[in-house]
Each structure stands twice: as structure tokens, then as C-alpha cells.
């Protein structure tokens, strides 16, 4: 997924869309907006980002799950099987982005890139409702896809690369 920070306005439509699409209980959220302000008035830099689970290539949550409930599919999406999760909390401790939470039913939950919508050929809920169209979703292994071309042409960054997790959500700056 590629997100353009120059176009995000922080409206939180993606947060509410995800909550309604995935039945996230009130009080929890699978994605959120962060605002970073640098400098002093009147020379200020503002960055708005929509963050979620980064579906890392070297995911620490998959590595430390004792039952294998946290697994990674071939296309890179990290999912949690609720029936195999014992609720030990190790994956929550190991995520540097605090992307996981304990669902009130006991298992651990997080952003799934709307896997059920991808199977039907639709885009994830957050990408489809964004009013400024700042979110792009596609196959990074395919050099002709929109996301690969965006990464080739513009400067981009990832969150906390020093944690060694190789996250797969890129932010265009």
C-alpha cells in the first residue's frame, strides 16, 4: 500500500470505514491518523499520515506467535486465525507500530487489508472511501502496477525502518 502524505487531510474517513466494514468494536481501531508538527510559527512543517498494520516482510508478530495463529500469506498479507490464538499477547508486545489489539472476545485482531474484499476484486475499505484519493493499493512485485510506478517516481519513506521489520506500507513525501 502506498499513501501520499501530501494529499492526506486527516479527515479520518478511513478509520470509520474500517470500523464499519470489519465490525471493529467501539473503543478500538485498526487504523488511525497521526499528525506531526515541526518548527515554530510561522515556519511549520505538518505531516498527516494514516497508519495501520504494515504487513511487514520480516514480521516479528509472525515469528513470535507460539501457535502459528499469526501467519503470512504468499502475497505478503499477515493474518490472524482467531481460533488458534490463545491470547498470550506476545505479538502485541513485538509490534513496533502498536498495530494489534486484543479483541474483547479474547483473540488478537488487526488490519487485514480487507482480505475478504480483495478476494472479490475490490479495494480495501479505507482506500475506497478516501475523499482525496491519497491511498493506493496494489502489487509491489509487479513493476507495471500503479504502486510500483509511484515508488519509482517519488520520494518515499516507511515507518521506523530501524526496527528491522521491512514494512510494506510506504508514505510518499
Amino acid at each position: 500500500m502506498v499513501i501520499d502524505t501530501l494529499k492526506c487531510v486527516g479527515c479520518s474517513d478511513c478509520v470509520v470505514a474500517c470500523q464499519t466494514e470489519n465490525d471493529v468494536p467501539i473503543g478500538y481501531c485498526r487504523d488511525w491518523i497521526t499528525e506531526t508538527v515541526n518548527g515554530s510559527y510561522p515556519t511549520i512543517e505538518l505531516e498527516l499520515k494514516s497508519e495501520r498494520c504494515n504487513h511487514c516482510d520480516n514480521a516479528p508478530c509472525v515469528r513470535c506467535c507460539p501457535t502459528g495463529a499469526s501467519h503470512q500469506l504468499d502475497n505478503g498479507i499477515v493474518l490472524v486465525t482467531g481460533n488458534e490464538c490463545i491470547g498470550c499477547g506476545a505479538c502485541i508486545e513485538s509490534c513496533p507500530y502498536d498495530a494489534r489489539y486484543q479483541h474483547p472476545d479474547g483473540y488478537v485482531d488487526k488490519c487485514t487489508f480487507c482480505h475478504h474484499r480483495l478476494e472479490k476484486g475490490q479495494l480495501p475499505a479505507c482506500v475506497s472511501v478516501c475523499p482525496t484519493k491519497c491511498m493506493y493499493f496494489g502489487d509491489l512485485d509487479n513493476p507495471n502496477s500503479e504502486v510500483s510506478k509511484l515508488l519509482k517516481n517519488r520520494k518515499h519513506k516507511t515507518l521506523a525502518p530501524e526496527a528491522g521489520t521491512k514494512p510494506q506500507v510506504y508514505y510518499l513525501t
Partner: protein
Amino acid sequence: MQEELFTSGRNIPNIDPSLEIWHWPISVYLFLGGLAAGLLFFAGLITVLGKDKEYPASVKFASIVSPIALTLGLLALFYDLTHKLYFWRLYTTIRIESPMSWGAWVLLIITPISFLWVMSYYSELFPKWKLNFEFLNTFEKFLQKNRRNMAIALIPLSIILGIYTGILLSAFNARPLWNNAILGPLFLVSGLSTGAATIILLAKSAKEKHLFGKIDLILIVIELGLIVHMLMGMYAGSEVQLEAMQLLVGGEFTLMFFGFVIILGLIVPAILELTELIGYKIPVAIPALLVLIGGLVFRFVMVEAGQITRYLY
């Protein structure tokens, strides 16, 4: 000025403003696991070296504590799970990359062995409660014959039990306070030292108390060296590790860490045991109890402080 905040008002319970997923059951389990590992290591080692008649407390009396400690630790872990009905899923697969999976399997193997170990000493430990069933008596004799085999199995298993608690924490690269490789050996040495302290408390002969007093002294010195190593390593680390260091030496946990863990838990018992070796009479219960309290507080501090450290926000 720099400002970083959640515009969308994120306030997930137990995660914001700082992570609080693991509470006291995990710290209690880490302490009990280390204690049991230390006790079983010494029990196995003394039996393999053939000195079990000279040091009865370490193989007999103190080893009653290990099955109790392991059972209480397992109950504490089970209590901490949030999806309790599915705990059996832990035993449907072995995941080599997950230290928690190693721990689950090692606990599964070592807990019955510790019960069998106590069972093999049953007639010596509980002479008043004679076993009424004949097959239990033959079972006990079978265990006594195989005691040396059990001891040989116990030594590596107890080392794995002691060290995996540290490796479990150091495998989380998202918590800078835990993400150093010294935590594994540090927890192992701490566990062995609490095990030696328990043996001192339960020992009956002065010779045994002195031997384990010396062993405990050496282990305390090694543990102090490893803690210094850990602090130096974090001083030389990245910004997040320096901030993690500040929690322990200059922040909220300084009193607990330096006061209870280092001074009361390590330095004072070392001085007391040294003066005892020189010749002064000191009741041995005091350094042993201080070491036990120091071990427990150390694990509480590590679990609580580690969850506050983070890479982002």
C-alpha cells in the same frame, strides 16, 4: 517545538498511552520459572556428581519446591491468557522461531519430571504417609533406579527453562529495553542464584549451607557483571535504547531497580555472605531472603519498564 499526536483520537485499552498487556502474572511466572530451573539444575548436578548423600537438602527437600513453583507458574500464565479455551493450541505445533513455543514444550516435559523426582524420594520425605498401593511402591523403586537418568535429563532441560525466559523477552525487537542478547544469560544466572538461595534456606547441615553460600556468592558476582554489561550496552546503543536506559537509572524505576534489585538484592547479600565466609556468624536466612526478593522485583521492573519503551510516538 515538535508535536506528535493521534488526530483520530486513538485510545485502545491497554495499548494507549503506553503498552500494558503483560501484568503481574507474567513477572511472577518468570520468577517461579527461574527458581524451579535453578533448583532442578542443582538437584540434577549434585546427583550426577554422585554427592547426593552428602547434600540431602539440595536433592530432596528443596526439590519439593520445584513442582509447586512450576504448577503455580503455569496457573499464573494460564490466568493471563485472554483466549483461555484455546490454550491447547500451544501443543498442536512446534514453532522453532518462537521462544514462547519452546517454553511451552519445555514446561510440558519438565513439570512431570519434577513431580516424578519428588515421587522417587517419597518414602524418605514423607515417612508418616505410607503408600497403600503396591504398584505405587514398585513405581517408586523403579524411579529410584532411574534417578541418575532423570538427573542427566534434568540438567539441559533446566538450563533451557532458565534461559528461555530471557530469550523470550529479548526476541521482541519492538521493545528497546528487552532487545539485547544478554537478557537470556542474565535471567538464567538470576534463576540459578534464587535456586541456590532457596537451598540455603532449606538446608539442614552447615556444610551444605556453606557450599551453597559460596555458589550463591559466585552467581551474584556474575549477575552483577551481566547487569553492568547490559547497562553499558544500552548506553552505547541507539536513541531509543538510551531512553530505555533513562527509565532504569534516571526515571521512575530507579528506586526499585537500584534500591531493591541491585543494592538489597545483590550487593548486600554478597557482602553478608562474604563476611560469613570470613568467619563472622550471620543468620543465613537473611541473604537468601534478600536474593529471592531481589529476583522477584527484578522481573517486575523488567516487565513493567520494558512495556513503556517503544520506537514510535
